[in-house]
C-alpha cells in the first residue's frame, strides 16, 4: 500500500489505509481492492469539505484550549456578586419605591 509517489499528509491522517492511493495509480491491484479504493475515494471526495471543516474546527478548538490553559491572568479574578445581588434587590424594591415617591411629592 505504499506505492504513491507524493505523500499527502491530510489523507494520511484521515484515511491512513485506503485513500492513500488513488485508483489511477493502482493498475496491478486485484478487483476487490480497486473497487474498495474507488468507493473510498468517492466517499472522500464527497466528504472532503466536511472533513476539512472538522479538521479546522478541531485545530481551532485545540488552539483555544491551549490559550486558556497557557495564559494566566496577571490580576486576581474578582467575581462581583454584589452587582447581581443588588440588581435583584432593586427589582424587588422598585414598585414600592415608586409608590413612596408618589406619596411624598414634597421631598421628591
Amino acid at each position: 500500500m505504499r506505492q504513491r509517489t507524493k505523500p499527502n499528509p491530510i489523507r494520511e491522517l484521515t484515511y491512513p489505509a485506503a485513500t492513500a492511493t488513488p485508483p489511477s495509480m493502482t493498475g496491478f491491484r486485484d478487483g476487490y481492492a480497486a473497487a474498495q479504493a474507488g468507493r473510498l475515494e468517492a466517499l472522500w471526495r464527497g466528504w472532503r469539505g466536511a472533513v476539512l471543516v472538522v479538521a479546522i474546527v478541531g485545530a481551532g478548538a485545540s488552539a483555544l484550549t491551549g490559550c486558556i490553559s497557557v495564559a494566566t491572568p496577571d490580576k486576581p479574578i474578582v467575581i462581583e456578586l454584589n452587582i447581581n445581588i443588588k440588581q435583584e434587590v432593586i427589582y424587588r424594591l422598585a414598585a414600592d419605591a415608586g409608590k413612596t415617591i408618589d406619596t411624598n411629592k414634597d421631598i421628591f
Partner: protein
Amino acid sequence: MARSVSRSTKRRSSALAAAALAVLALAVGAFAQSRDPAYAAARSAGQVGELMNGYLAVTGAGTAELRRMVDDINIRRKAVYAEKAQAQHATVEEYAFTSGCVLILHTEPGEKYQAPNGGWQTRTSQPPTRDPRCP
C-alpha cells in the same frame, strides 16, 4: 331666653367652624404633597440635581440657602427611605438607590441628574442614562 338661644347658636357655629378648620387642616396635611416653590425653581433651573444614590445635590457652587434646603430635603428623604427599607427588609442604601433609579427616570427635561460616569447630565426628552442595574 333669647340670649340663651343666641348663645347656643353661637356655640354651635363655633363648633362648626372648628370642625371645618380641622377638615381643612387634614386636607392641607394630605395635600402637602407639592414641592416648595424654592425647591421647584432650583430643580427646573438645574441648580440642584438627582444623584444616583437617591439623594439631592447642588450642581454648581450654590448658595448657603440652597445647600441648607438640599440638606433638609435629604434628611427627610433618608427618614422615609429608612422607614420603607425596614418594612421591605432591605438596607437604607438599597432602598435609596432604587429610589434614585426611579427619580432619575422621572426627571423632567432641563433638570439635572447624575449619569453613571458620575457627572451631571441635563435631562432631555430622551430617556436618561442610568445605572445598568436600574429596572
